[in-house]
């Protein structure tokens, strides 16, 4: 009879305790790997907030600040870009496309983004995923709007509904553009990016709602009706930022330098990937804290394993002494216990991995639709497998503590076997 079979039969004899210990380890492994998946998923989702855009151009400011307001709609621009500069850049031979963005207004806490219809073609996220419409279509009329999935869900909006945009953050009295309401022409599919929380209108519409406004307030005595505005020249004078696609990626750095040294006005061009990476490193402390927590979970599980083995050791003292009297060396006794802890941890790790994939299959669509967190279901990575191997190794070595105690007690017990 092999030592492994003896260990397995002994484990089977204590199957309730063994299964509970194994389940404890499995849950810890699942939790650890889930946190890892979420951590990498969050990082990837974050890094994939915008893709396919070579440069983001805004008024002179820091990289992260420009990224925050142009992509994440957090904070405000220190200054705007003139329409002339935008046109000048758009006319450069290196530029394939340029999508202007105008920020400033809001609707019930959601930011309003003035842009062109090209935005819906050119904006890419994840690995080149484009925007698609859950319902309706892009804006066509001057007062059409396309809302993100979160806006539609949070405010319960449907196609055709009319909404009123507030000036700025919309907290001041009478700060609503209620004379020029918008009609929802389209609702975007969920993307897991800030697009979901945006209300998109045309650049001309931004101009239109501000024709009778100055310095953040209505011009007293002036009220231009929506229908009259349609006949006015609504070419924008300034913009907040622009997304740029270049004909050749090789030219990116050269073109970035050109923009940064632009003579007509002080501008900043950033590479979205680099800026996202810089921004992520700012929140890296939280990521590391999450990693530390998941590591603690594993350490606790292995301590639990040692505790269980030590707790059952006393009742197994007789079993050890019987084996010893039949010729087992104290080393064999120690090996038996180590094999046992190794088997429990291995089974726990395999079960934990299976649980993880079960959870992923169930929760992936939910996480994607509810939180915009896209977790890829793919085979365990080398990092996952290395972690699992280390956990099994640690669990096996943890068995050395009770093994050492069993070694000592089996020497002391000799042939006087306790019943």
């Amino acid at each position, binding site marked *: *009879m*092999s*030592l492994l079979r*003896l260990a397995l*039969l*002994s484990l*089977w*004899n204590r199957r309730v305790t063994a299964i509970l210990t194994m389940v404890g380890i499995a849950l810890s492994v699942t939790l650890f790997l889930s946190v890892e998946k979420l951590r990498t998923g969050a990082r990837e989702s974050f890094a994939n907030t915008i893709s396919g855009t070579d440069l983001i151009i805004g008024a002179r400011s820091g990289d992260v600040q420009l990224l925050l307001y142009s992509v994440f709609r957090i904070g405000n621009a220190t200054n705007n870009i003139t329409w002339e500069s935008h046109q000048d850049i758009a006319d450069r031979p290196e530029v394939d496309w340029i999508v202007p963005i105008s920020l400033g207004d809001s609707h019930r806490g959601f930011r309003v983004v003035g842009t062109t219809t090209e935005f819906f073609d050119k904006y890419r996220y994840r690995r080149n995923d484009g925007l698609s419409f859950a319902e309706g279509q892009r804006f066509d009329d001057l007062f059409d709007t396309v809302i993100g999935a979160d806006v539609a869900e949070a405010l319960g909006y449907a196609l055709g509904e009319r909404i009123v945009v507030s000036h700025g953050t919309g907290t001041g009295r009478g700060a609503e553009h209620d004379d020029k309401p918008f009609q929802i022409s389209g609702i975007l599919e969920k993307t897991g990016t800030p697009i979901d929380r945006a209300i998109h209108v045309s650049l001309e519409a931004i101009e239109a709602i501000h024709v009778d406004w100055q310095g953040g307030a209505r011009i007293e005595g002036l009220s231009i009706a929506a229908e009259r505005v349609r006949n006015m020249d609504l070419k924008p004078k300034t913009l907040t930022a622009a997304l740029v696609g270049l004909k050749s990626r090789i030219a990116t750095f050269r073109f970035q330098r050109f923009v940064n040294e632009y003579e007509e006005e002080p501008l900043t061009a950033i590479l979205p990937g680099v800026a996202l990476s810089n921004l992520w490193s700012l929140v890296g402390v939280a990521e590391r804290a999450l990693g530390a927590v998941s590591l603690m979970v594993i350490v606790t599980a292995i301590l639990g394993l040692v505790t269980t083995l030590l707790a059952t050791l006393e009742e197994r003292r*007789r*079993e050890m*002494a*019987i*084996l*010893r*009297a*039949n*010729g*087992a*060396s*104290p*080393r*064999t006794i120690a090996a038996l216990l180590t094999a046992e802890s190794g088997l429990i941890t291995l089974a726990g790790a395999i079960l934990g991995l299976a649980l993880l994939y079960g959870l992923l299959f169930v929760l992936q669509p939910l996480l994607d639709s509810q939180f915009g967190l896209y977790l890829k279901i793919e085979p365990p990575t080398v990092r996952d497998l290395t972690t699992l191997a280390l956990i099994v190794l640690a669990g096996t070595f943890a068995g050395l503590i009770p093994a050492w105690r069993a070694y000592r007690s089996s020497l002391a017990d*000799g*042939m*006087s*076997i306790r*019943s």
Partner: protein
Amino acid sequence: MTDTHPAIAIRNVAFSWDGDFSIEIDTFDVAPGERVMLLGPSGGGKSTFLNLVAGIVPPSRGSIDILGTDIAALRGAKADGYRADSFGIVFQQFNLLPWLSARDNVLIPLRFSKQRRKRAAPAKDSANRLLGALGIDSALFRTPAGRLSVGQQQRVAAARALIGSPGVILADEPTSALDRAMADAFLDLLYGEIGGAGSALLMVSHDETLAGGFDRVVRLDDIVRVSRRAIA
């Protein structure tokens, strides 16, 4: 196993548990195939004597020759290996692993002794034969030992000691849990099997009435000197 050496030869042995309890043995021999009964009361140094003979505790001086090898001079894995090769042990409380089948219990010593494994090959057949010879129904071979009756468990324990024909069978009060009729029947079976294998039997007991089937009866007091430190 060899006939040229005594099965057990103890010379000038001393042993002490932390200075509180010590025993000394000048000379004690058991010949190959001999059946010796060691009579002694509880607390008379019986367990320490068996631990010394089985090589589980080393003496502070002297030699314990088992089948020609001084087991007192062996250490670690060598001592364990030699013990596994040379001894079959029957305990007072049977000491079977209750969750293992009757046959798997019998097979345990073969896991730790190459020589006995070789002598008992094929192992399962040997275990089946021994269990059958000791009166265990073949239907019970795969039954967990914990579900067998007291008498059946004692016979399984005897089969475990006998498998692979070790040179020495040590038996520590093996019949104390059995009634008289069962004890006699068990000893008859044991003698028969030991006789067939040519093993020496050293049985410790406090029951003089069992002495009939032994070649020699030795009183523990006659060979072992026990001293205890007085408690203040």
